[in-house]
């Protein structure tokens, strides 16, 4: 299956050709070239998926394939970076997701970005991103993943800062890059630690728990902790950075300064789930050797999900709401992974499942990618028309934008977990897995699901219902090349829930039958419906005074949530006040004044030194003679007594 290489080459080709020759091309044709290449990529991905999943299992287990693996750089005998393609269920699934969403975004952008300056640049960067993201998911070893991890970071940086004349976009892009970079540093440290003790980067070896490398690493400690715990925890910090887990989530809401299709592609569907993918990729390591870290992940993720959901309830910028919703949903995925197991687990009152969480997480990743991209693209269509991100500038748009309205509603229902839309199925699995792990966590997650339904419908009603805002230009439905992707994604969202996902993806590679846990399903649907009802009551007319009252009732909590619990301010404080003021500036000062001052001082003393010997040179000829005779006598003494 060497042809899978072309999945990487085609977008890269797009990047290079548009990047180098872009200025020679007309904007539109650049877009068409990019889209055409991406179309081919998508076809290849589908073909790959079809071919891969139709292959025979060995002992009931899907085999991982490495059609290409080429040593790129050799560190030591055992440690070398390979560049290759690893095909296994999750990477193939990710390829499909990436190429689908990317293709949709490419098509969508033809309309959305129409008339923008730098069209070529935009498509070039999209190509770069797609290339990097595909490279990331097919990585055969952890270092390859790190390489592409960095590359997606850069493409994200470039795309967020696409409107580089806007200061907000510039600072958002900077923030995104630096925060993720900060996390990547821990990822790198984790890799160093892991590879030092296991002597390999290769996923194939790392994911095999029986491999002797672990036996040797198991007892070792580093700085007082078990090596593997250190390593996996550090790697998770890297994952948390990309996947915007608390407290490293701060870059994601700001990243919405980028063009909306970019947000859809990178900051909703693909790049931000890289962290989830990474944990899933190393799942055996986490599960078998460092279960405490895995559980830690679950708690962090649950907290993040709750936090983001609360914040999402009070945001007024529609993209911000979606951003926090994304954070929350990624929290769901990671919770699922965190609570998952690979063996058989007996839990009270609930059916036993093998690796249900793992499957659920991947499933949710898949469905979420589709409906969140749809939401973002829909939001983009609205912003395209309204020229604003604020809810207050919207309202009653369902008449002007029927297609957008319907597709948006589909997505909202999906994310709220209403059957038969895809989100219902995946979220239900996650909740089930959570209940199995710790019932109280399940309750929390259900609550978050309710919150999700509430804020999504708050959004929905505020945009499409409520009181229309005044506009000085006519509002209209988006052009076809924008609505097309919306419709396509909506269709996918509708049907995706019925995919027998467990047959394709599972923690061990063995086939796995999904069956709904009715108790959990019914509870969650009922709660979701209640939430939607509340949202309808509060926001449908746009005249209700209850929201304001509630804001008053919750007072400090409301204000805090509106300010995202001041996390950004804390960061601002740490970076500007502590790092810049208290570290960098003193260091720079120290360098200029102390170190340099010492050197200048030596110079000064030397220059001044002659004044100390001025008495030698009075101009008086007898003093010279005195010096001579005294000198001679002193030297004589020295020579006599030394």
């Amino acid at each position, binding site marked *: 299956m060497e042809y899978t290489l072309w999945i990487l080459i085609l977008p890269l080709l797009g990047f290079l050709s548009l990047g180098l020759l872009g200025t020679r091309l007309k904007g539109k044709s650049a877009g068409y070239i990019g889209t055409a290449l991406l179309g081919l990529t998508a076809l290849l991905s589908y073909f790959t998926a079809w071919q891969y999943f139709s292959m025979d299992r060995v002992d009931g287990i899907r085999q991982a394939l490495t059609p290409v693996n080429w040593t790129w750089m050799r*560190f030591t005998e055992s440690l070398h970076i390979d560049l290759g393609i690893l095909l296994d269920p999750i990477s193939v699934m990710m390829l499909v997701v990436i190429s689908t969403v990317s293709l949709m975004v490419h098509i969508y952008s033809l309309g959305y970005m129409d008339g923008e300056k730098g069209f070529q640049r935009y498509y070039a960067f999209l190509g770069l991103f797609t290339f990097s993201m595909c490279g990331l998911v097919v990585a055969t070893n952890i270092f390859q993943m790190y390489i592409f991890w960095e590359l997606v970071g850069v493409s994200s940086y470039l795309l967020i800062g696409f409107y580089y*004349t*806007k200061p907000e976009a510039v600072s958002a892009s*900077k923030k995104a890059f630096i925060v993720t970079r900060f996390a990547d540093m821990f990822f*790198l440290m984790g890799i160093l630690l892991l590879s*030092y003790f296991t002597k390999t980067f290769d996923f194939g070896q790392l994911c095999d728990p029986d491999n002797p490398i672990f036996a040797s690493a198991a007892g070792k400690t580093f700085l007082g902790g078990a090596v593997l715990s250190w390593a996996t925890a550090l790697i998770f910090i890297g994952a948390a950075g990309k996947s915007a887990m608390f407290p490293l989530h701060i870059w994601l809401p700001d990243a919405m300064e980028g063009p909306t299709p970019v947000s859809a592609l990178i900051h909703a569907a693909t790049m931000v789930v890289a962290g989830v993918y990474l944990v899933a990729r190393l799942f055996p390591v986490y599960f078998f050797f460092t279960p405490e870290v895995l559980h830690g992940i679950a708690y962090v993720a649950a907290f993040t999900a709750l936090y983001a959901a609360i914040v999402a309830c009070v945001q007024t910028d529609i993209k911000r709401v979606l951003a926090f919703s994304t954070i929350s949903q990624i929290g769901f995925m990671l919770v699922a992974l965190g609570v998952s197991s690979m063996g058989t687990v007996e839990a009270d009152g609930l059916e036993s499942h093998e690796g249900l969480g793992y499957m659920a997480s991947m499933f949710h990743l898949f469905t979420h990618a589709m409906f969140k991209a749809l939401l973002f693209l829909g939001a983009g269509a609205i912003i395209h028309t309204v020229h604003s991100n604020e809810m207050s500038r919207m309202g009653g748009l369902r008449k002007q934008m029927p297609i957008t309205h319907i597709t948006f509603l589909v997505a909202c229902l999906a994310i709220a977990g209403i059957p038969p839309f895809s989100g219902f199925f995946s979220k239900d699995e996650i909740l089930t897995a959570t209940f199995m792990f710790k019932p109280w966590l399940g309750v929390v997650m259900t609550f978050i699901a309710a919150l999700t339904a509430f804020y999504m419908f708050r959004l929905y009603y505020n945009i499409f219902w409520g009181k229309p805002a005044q506009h000085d230009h006519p509002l209209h439905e988006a052009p076809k090349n924008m609505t097309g992707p919306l419709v396509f994604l909506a269709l996918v969202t509708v049907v995706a829930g019925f995919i027998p996902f467990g047959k394709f993806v599972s923690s061990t590679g063995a086939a796995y039958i999904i069956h709904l846990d009715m108790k959990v399903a019914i509870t969650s649907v009922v709660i979701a419906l209640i939430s939607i009802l509340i949202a309808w009551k509060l926001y449908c007319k746009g005249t209700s005074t209850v929201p304001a009252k509630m804001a008053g009732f919750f007072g400090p909590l409301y204000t805090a949530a509106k300010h995202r619990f001041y996390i950004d301010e804390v960061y601002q404080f740490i970076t500007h006040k502590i790092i*810049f003021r208290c570290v960098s500036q003193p*260091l720079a000062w120290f360098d200029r004044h102390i170190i340099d001052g010492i050197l200048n001082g030596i110079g000064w003393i030397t220059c001044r030194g002659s004044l100390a010997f001025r008495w030698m040179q009075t101009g008086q000829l007898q003093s010279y003679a005195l010096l001579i005779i005294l000198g001679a006598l002193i030297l004589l003494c020295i020579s006599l007594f030394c």
Partner: protein
Amino acid sequence: MNLLSIFVAIPVLMLAGLFLSRTRQQARIISATGASLLMVAAVALAFLFMAERHAGNTDAMLFTASAQWFPAWNIGYSVGVDGISVLMILLSAFIVFTGIFTSWNIDPLPKEYFMWFCLLSVGVFGFFISLDLFTMFMFYEVALIPMYLLIGVWGSGKKEYAAMKLTLMLMGGSALLMLGILGIYFGSGATSMDIMDIAQSTIPTALQKYFFPLTFIGFGVLGALFPFHTWSPDGHASAPTAVSMLHAGVLMKLGGYGCFRVAMFLMPEAANELAWIFLILTGISVVYGAFSACVQKDLKYINAYSSVSHCGLVLFALLMMNTTAMTGAIMQMLSHGLMTALFFALIGMIYGRTHTRDIREMGGLMKIMPFLGVGYVIAGLASLGLPGLSGFVAEMNVFVGSFQHADTFHRVLTLIAVTSIVITAVYILRVVGKILYGPVQNPAHLKLTDAVWFERLPVMVLILAIAAIGLYPGWIADWIHTALEPIVSRLTLAAL
């Protein structure tokens, strides 16, 4: 004539040609021709070297030649190259080539400028081909002194102060170095100043303990070893563009090169014993340089502190004394050389247009000069270690290699050094954000133009080189591995 002597001969001939030249145009043509010849020669050398190695020649040094010079002290003119020297020569040729084009419109006194520049190249190339301690040291000093006038006459800002400081500090280093070299020679009891011959005999460990620090600090001053790095910010900020390029790009590499070729190779026992002191110092360099760069306001200062950080990493990795880390160090030398040269070239071009290097007075330049802007972004990305560009390859070798050290102390230091990648990102993005992006700060800048051909040429050459290393590090890694073998094996042996 020996193949390698060409590298000294060409700049000397250029000097002669420039001496006879009458007009600016002639001076330019001579310099450009000479630099191109150097480039061709360097590439040819690389290919010949490869051919030799393929043919199965496994000598440590190839293309060796030697002639007696001062028999009383067993001084000879002996030359030879291994993979590392070839790479360094390539790097130098690249930077001299691009430097000449960057100085195309130098004013005043173009002829003199190019002459000093050539003298500098004589020193640089001579250093890299030399195997004889004395000759090496001589070329080392030849490379230092032209800096004074190049900065003093053609520089900007506090040029006189900076030039003096730079020259004196580097000469201070070379004073220690001279004693170190003499100590090595007499301590080894060898009957030759040829490094390869001295390596045959051992210097008593008690003596090594004195001469290793001398030699290491001597070279380290040029490699911006903390706390002897302060010449670098002032010097680089004041120097004319091409001189900053050559200085940060190549000259600082002389320091690193000397550190392992002379100090560590010849005194392995002391290297092992004293490495920890220098590891701490270089570790400080790495982090400290990066932090200091974060708050600078002058573009060149930022870059100079970044050089402190990056060159600190070179010495840091060398001191880890295993093949991977040292390979990383050499790669970092190459990478930093190309990258800083690119940075300085671009800064020079930007400065030539805006007449300011204060980042607070610039903004939105990307729109006005897209070519330079894109170049700057690429340089920045290379500097912060983007995969696919040279910085990444080097840094990963350094980090992975350093982490292979069995000692917890070394590994913790490595982790500290790793933090530099974040800080680097901070200051690079800060600059890029301030000067290239955002709204145009100064309306007068709107009238400025983008790069012209003799500015584009060096930028593109450097970017290509950076990408070439970054995309396919395998070939240089092989050369470096082979070349490092004798050095590492000596160091490992000494550690036991």
